[in-house]
C-alpha cells in the first residue's frame, strides 16, 4: 500500500475539501446546548447576503441560539480548522526543509518557544493582540537557534538538530514553568491548562488574526513546493539546478514558525498535529510537496475540528490531550503498517 491517492490527487483534494466543510458543519451541531441541525443551517444561511432574506426569520429558534452559534461555536470551530491547517502546513514545511520525518513545530521546540512568549505576555498583562507577536518573536528565536545549532560545517546535521530542538524545548518549558511558579495561585491553573491547548473561549478576533496568517503562510509555503521537492534530492544537485537553497530554507523556517506561533498564542500548545498529519498525507499522496501541502492542510483542519468536537462532547478535556490520545496511537499504527516505507 503505497500512496493510494497519488493518482487521484484532484479528486481526493475535492473530497477532502468537502469533508472539511462537512466536519465544520457537523462540529457546529455539537455542544453542551442542544440545537437542532435544521436551526443551525437556518442561522448560517440567514447570514449570507441575498440568500439570507429568504431565511431572515427562523421560527422556533430563540435568539440565544443565534448567539451561541454565531458568537461561540462558529469562531471556535473555525479557529480549530485554521489551527489544524496552520500546524500541519508548518510541520510539512519543516519536514521538507530538514528532510526528516521527525521535524515538527512541537519536536523542534517552536511550540514551546511560542508558548513561553505568550505566557510572558499573559504574566505581564499584555493586551491580547500582542500575544501572537510575543509568541512569534520567541518561536522565531527558538527556531533560528535550533537551526544554527544544527549546522555543522555549513550543512544541517539531523541528529544535532533534533538534540538542539530537544534542548530548546526543555529550556523554553522550564522558563514557562518558572512563570507558572511566580504567578498567582488563581492564575496558575489557567496557565497550566493553557499549556495543554484549548479552543474554549475563542472569539472572532482570534479568527480575524489567524485566518490571514494561515492564508499568507500556506501560500508562501506552497509557492516553494517545487524548490522543496528538489532539495529532497540533495542540496548539491538543487544548487546546480539553480535553486537558492539557503534562501528557501530561511523563508520556509520563518513562515513555518509564524504559522505555528500565531495559532499557539490563541490556543495554547496542541501537539502531534504538525507531526502526524504531514506523515499521514505523505503516505496518502507521496512526497511531492505540490500534493502534500494542500492535502496536509485539509487533513489537519479536519483532524483538529474532530478532536475539538470530541473535547466539547467530553466536558472540555483539553484538546491537546485528545490530539495526543488519538494522534500518538495512530502514528504508531502507521509506523507498524508501513515499517521501512514512510514515504521518504
Amino acid at each position, binding site marked *: 500500500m503505497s500512496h493510494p491517492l497519488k493518482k487521484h490527487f484532484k479528486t481526493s483534494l475535492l473530497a477532502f475539501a468537502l469533508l472539511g466543510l462537512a466536519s465544520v458543519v457537523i462540529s457546529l451541531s455539537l455542544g453542551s446546548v442542544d440545537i437542532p441541525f435544521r436551526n443551525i443551517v437556518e442561522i448560517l444561511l440567514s447570514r449570507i447576503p441575498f440568500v439570507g432574506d429568504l431565511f431572515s426569520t427562523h421560527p422556533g429558534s430563540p435568539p440565544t441560539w443565534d448567539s451561541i452559534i454565531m458568537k461561540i461555536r462558529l469562531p471556535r470551530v473555525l479557529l480549530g480548522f485554521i489551527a489544524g491547517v496552520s500546524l500541519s502546513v508548518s510541520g510539512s514545511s519543516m519536514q521538507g526543509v530538514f528532510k526528516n520525518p521527525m521535524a515538527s513545530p512541537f519536536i523542534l521546540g517552536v511550540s514551546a518557544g511560542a508558548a513561553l512568549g505568550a505566557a510572558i505576555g499573559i504574566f505581564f498583562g499584555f493586551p491580547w493582540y500582542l500575544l501572537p507577536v510575543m509568541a512569534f518573536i520567541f518561536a522565531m528565536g527558538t527556531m533560528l537557534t535550533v537551526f544554527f545549532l544544527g549546522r555543522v560545517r555549513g550543512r544541517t546535521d539531523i541528529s544535532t538538530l533534533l538534540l538542539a530542538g530537544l534542548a530548546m524545548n526543555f529550556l523554553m518549558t522550564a522558563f514557562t514553568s518558572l512563570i507558572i511558579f511566580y504567578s498567582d495561585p488563581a492564575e496558575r491553573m489557567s496557565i497550566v491548562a493553557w499549556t495543554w491547548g484549548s479552543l474554549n473561549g475563542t472569539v472572532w478576533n482570534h479568527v480575524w488574526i489567524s485566518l490571514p496568517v494561515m492564508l499568507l503562510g500556506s501560500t508562501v509555503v506552497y*509557492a516553494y513546493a517545487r524548490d522543496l521537492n528538489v532539495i529532497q534530492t540533495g542540496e548539491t544537485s538543487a544548487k546546480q539546478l539553480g535553486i537558492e537553497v539557503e534562501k528557501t530554507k530561511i523563508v520556509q523556517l520563518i513562515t513555518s514558525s509564524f504559522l505555528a506561533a500565531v495559532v499557539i498564542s490563541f490556543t495554547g500548545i496542541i501537539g502531534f498535529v504538525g507531526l502526524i498529519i504531514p506523515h499521514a498525507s505523505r503516505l496518502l499522496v507521496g512526497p511531492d510537496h505540490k500534493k502534500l501541502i494542500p492535502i496536509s492542510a485539509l487533513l489537519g483542519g479536519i483532524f483538529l475540528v474532530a478532536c475539538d468536537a470530541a473535547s466539547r462532547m467530553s466536558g472540555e478535556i483539553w484538546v491537546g490531550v485528545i490530539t495526543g490520545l488519538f494522534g500518538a496511537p495512530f502514528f504508531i499504527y502507521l509506523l507498524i503498517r508501513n515499517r521501512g516505507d514512510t514515504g521518504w
Partner: protein
Amino acid sequence: MESKYVLAAVGVLVAVVFIIAALLGPLSGTIEQDDQEDEQSFVVEDATGNEIRFDEPPERIVSFMASNTELLFHLEVGERIVGVDDFSDYPEEAVAIQNVGDSLEVDYEKIVDLEPDVMVITEAVIHMRDEMENYGIKCFVTGGNTLEDVYSDLELLGEMCGVPERGEEKAQELREDMNDITEDTKDLPEYERVDVLYISGIFEGINTPGEGTFQNTLFTNAGFNNIASDKIGWATISEEDIVMRDPDVIIAPYYLEESISEYTEKDSWQDITAVVEDEIHFVDGDIMSRPGPRIVEAQETLVDINEEAETNLSLSWSISSKELAEGTCLTL
C-alpha cells in the same frame, strides 16, 4: 518560478483584505449601545469600582463561585439564580441549579443559553468580564479578600438586586455576629495567643493563607497567632519553616486528613508542639475557604478550637513545668 511570485502576491493581497476587514470592525459581535437612559435605570458599583447600569433589578443571575452563590441565597434572592459554577453546593437548593463549568473550563454556551441579566464573578476570574462582554452579558465582580469585603459584597449585591435595605441589614447582622463571637479573643495580647498553622491545601508544597487573606483575620480574631502571617496572600510554607516556627495547633480541611498524616508521621515533625500534643484539628474546608455568610460558622469553629487547645496546652504546660521542676530537683 514566476507562478511562485504570482501565488505569493495573491496570498499577500488576500491577507491585506482580511486585515483591512478586521480593522474595519468585526463582522459579528458588534454591541449596540443604547445611550438613552431609562427612567427606572440605576447604576451599581461592584467591588472593583466598575459601574454597571441596569434597567431593572436582575431577575436571571448566573453565579460563578460558590461564595457568590451563598451570598445571593443569604440575601434571599436565591430563586433568581439560573446557573452556578460546578463548586456551588450550598445551600441545598443550589445543587439543583444548572451548572455552567468551573474557572478552568467555562461552559460559555450554557451561560449564553441561560440568558442571564447579570453574571456574578470574583476578582480571581476577572478576565471573564471581557469575555462575557462579547456575548453581551454584564458581570458584577465581588471582592472576597477580606472580612470587610464580605460585608460590602452583601451590601453591593443587595443594591444590585433591588433590595438595598436587606443587603445593609444582612451585612450589619453578620458584622455584629462576628464581633460577638470574637469579643473575648480578638484583642488577646501576643503572649496569650496560640500559634497556629492552617494548611489550606497541598499543591506544590504546603499552602497556607498569609497576611491580607480573610482567613488570617479569622485566626487572629479567634485568639490565634498565624505562624504564616509574615507571608503575603496565599503562600506556600516550607517544612523547615514549620518546624522552626513550631505551631501549637495545626488545622486543615477534612479532605486533607490522609495527606496531613503523611507529614505528621515524619521524623522531622515529631518535635512540633501540635504533633506532640496531638493538636491537629480538621474542619469543613468549604466554610474556611468561601468568603460568604458562613464565615460565622468558620469563626465559631476556630474560637472553639482555640479554647480547647488553650486548656489542653496550658494543662500540659503546667505538667511539663512540674516535670521540669522535679527533674531539676533530681539532678540537683
